[in-house]
């Protein structure tokens, strides 16, 4: 049904066309940088000649050419080399690939657990809802980094330190966020006439949830996704810095910075500076996309009378931060009268 699809696409695109210019610029800049990073991560490693583990170049006679140790940036090694004779630029490219993979998998994990639980909790209500909300609230007030550290630490006993274990450790942190937003949104959608109509027509509960509720609720997910993605890059780097990320010497920005700590005392700056700049740039870009999207989607929700009252139409609104930090104290009123986050509020 192509025509139906087109209607749906146009419907989905409308908020973008109506968004303010600042919001469009923000999204565009963020997307551009993210795209460059993605490209660099996937095509980039083809451009350097080092193998992805030891960063050595095999010679014709089968021996390895050794890179100089701690060479400053030069035309030969654009961003210098490390104590372990790695090329910094090559490691940043490969580290980017790892970061994007972990971000993708971790948010996927968080979504796969948080979204269905949120739907169920919001739709069913009652004791199940109360129990889930309490557990999620408890997880939510816990320092996110500490939670990731604990999960990473526990997984060490069962899994090798790789992308799956890192993604699980990072993903756990965001489950409560997806849960909360989806649950609150479900609560308000549940009251809509079309849902009641479906219910009175005798539609099965799972049909109602998957066909009518989920479709509406799902649109709040992209915003959390981009904001989480930004945060996930930081969490992964923090785990790596503490030695709880992926198995060394896998190129990972946080781990690379931890290896640079000792260089700082001898005045070597390039081993620490560049991987950090890569993190800052990617996180900033993802934040811009998230905030831009937030701005685009929120007016739509507001027009439908579902958003909280406190939102500002200014490009960078509090709600951007709220998805990540603004909700905890509002826990007691999670039913929606104070939802700072976009889909939280009641009509």
């Amino acid at each position: 049904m192509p025509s139906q699809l087109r209607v749906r696409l146009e419907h989905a695109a409308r908020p973008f066309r109506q968004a303010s210019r600042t919001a469009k610029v923000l999204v565009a800049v963020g997307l551009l940088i993210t795209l460059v990073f993605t490209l660099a991560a996937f095509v980039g490693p083809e451009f350097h000649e080092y193998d992805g583990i030891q960063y050595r170049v095999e010679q014709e006679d089968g021996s390895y050419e050794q890179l100089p140790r701690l060479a400053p940036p030069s035309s030969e090694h654009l961003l210098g080399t490390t104590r372990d004779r790695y090329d910094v630029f090559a490691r940043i490219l490969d580290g980017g690939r790892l970061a994007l993979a972990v971000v993708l998998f971790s948010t996927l994990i968080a979504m796969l657990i948080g979204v269905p639980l949120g739907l169920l909790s919001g739709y069913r209500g009652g004791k199940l809802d109360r129990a889930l909300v309490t557990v999620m609230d408890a997880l939510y007030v816990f320092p996110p980094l500490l939670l990731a550290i604990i999960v990473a630490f526990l997984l060490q006993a069962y899994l090798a330190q790789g992308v799956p274990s890192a993604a699980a450790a990072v993903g756990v942190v965001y489950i409560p966020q997806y849960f909360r937003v989806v649950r609150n949104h479900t609560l308000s959608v549940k009251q809509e006439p079309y849902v009641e109509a479906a219910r009175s027509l005798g539609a099965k509960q799972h049909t109602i949830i998957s066909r009518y509720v989920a479709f509406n609720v799902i649109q709040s997910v992209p915003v959390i996704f981009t904001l989480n993605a930004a945060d996930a890059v930081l969490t992964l780097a923090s785990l790596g810095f503490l030695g709880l990320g992926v198995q060394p010497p896998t190129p990972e920005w946080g781990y690379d910075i931890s290896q640079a700590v000792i260089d700082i005392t001898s005045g070597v700056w390039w081993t620490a500076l560049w991987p950090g700049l890569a993190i800052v740039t990617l996180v900033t870009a993802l934040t811009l996309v998230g905030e831009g999207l937030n701005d685009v989607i929120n007016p739509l929700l507001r027009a439908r009378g579902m958003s909280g009252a406190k939102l500002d139409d200014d490009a960078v609104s509090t709600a951007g931060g709220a998805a990540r930090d603004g909700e905890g104290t509002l826990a007691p009123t999670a039913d929606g009268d104070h939802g700072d986050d976009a889909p939280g509020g009641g009509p």
Partner: protein
Amino acid sequence: MSATKTSGSLRRYLLTRIALTLPMLLILLTIVFLLLRVAPGDPIRATLGDRLSSAEIEARSEALGFNDPLIVQYGRYLGGALTGDLGNPITDRRTTAGVIRDTFPATLELTLFAMLVAITVGVLIGAVSGRLRDTPFDVGGRLFGIVIYAAPIFWLGLLAQLVFSLRLGWFPTGSRMTGFDAPPRVTGLQTVDAVIALDPSALVTAVHHLILPGTTLGLVIGGIFIRLVRVNMLQTLRSDYVEAAHARGVGERAVLFRHAFKNALVPVVTIVGLQFALLLGGAILTERVFSWPGMGTAILRFLEARDYVGVQGIVTFFAIVVVVISLIIDLVNGLVDPRIRY
């Protein structure tokens, strides 16, 4: 905001909120117990499995009660947690409570200083940005807020060390005063202890050590405050009561400070408490970079030694702190904002 009208609902809010604290704490402690005690199996084996013989492990597990039924251990754990007994780490002679007594003040001092920096930076830049909307200052302030929040704390800390201690030599690279340099311990907060001991030079040294790690941690959190205060400032400047004040002929400065600024700060109170969780997480990284002898350093040491009992004890303490802080913040919010009710 009539006090008499809302006092009944306020009392109900406060009581409900306090009553809700216990289940929340119970759930957190249960999660901690399940994760760190049940999941890894025998903690002695997990920690010392490669260093001790099976018989020795068995003997130590028996002596420490790890062979008791889990439900008994759970009860003992909860009872201990509520009475301040957080167990005995396998790789440390001190009790966990002792470790916390030695390290928590350092973390508290660091986070409080960081919070001070965050609020100062955030409120100043945020308020001015809001007032000077869309000027270069505003754009710069907002960009600073976003970029600083995107920076990994440990990386900022390293750069700060590189520039301010190694190149310029202004500050020590890390750690606190120890031994005879430190003022006699009363609170464990060295700045406070220095004041108590009436020792100005110790106070200067304590602050000197605090500046780099505290500012690093504070700036990152400050990024959030900048955005928050700015947006609130914009909103209050557009509100009816500010317009009314203008209409009454109140001077620009009075409107700004008496009406707009004060109201723009209310949501900051809310967010301060939340940021404490982020601060505690950030403190772990900051302590690692600056060799700050706090709780973050302690838990990292236990993690490296795979000391499940030590990790469990410190995490339990974190959980209690977090629940208490969120309770306090909600209570303050309830008092400040009459719209927050059950």
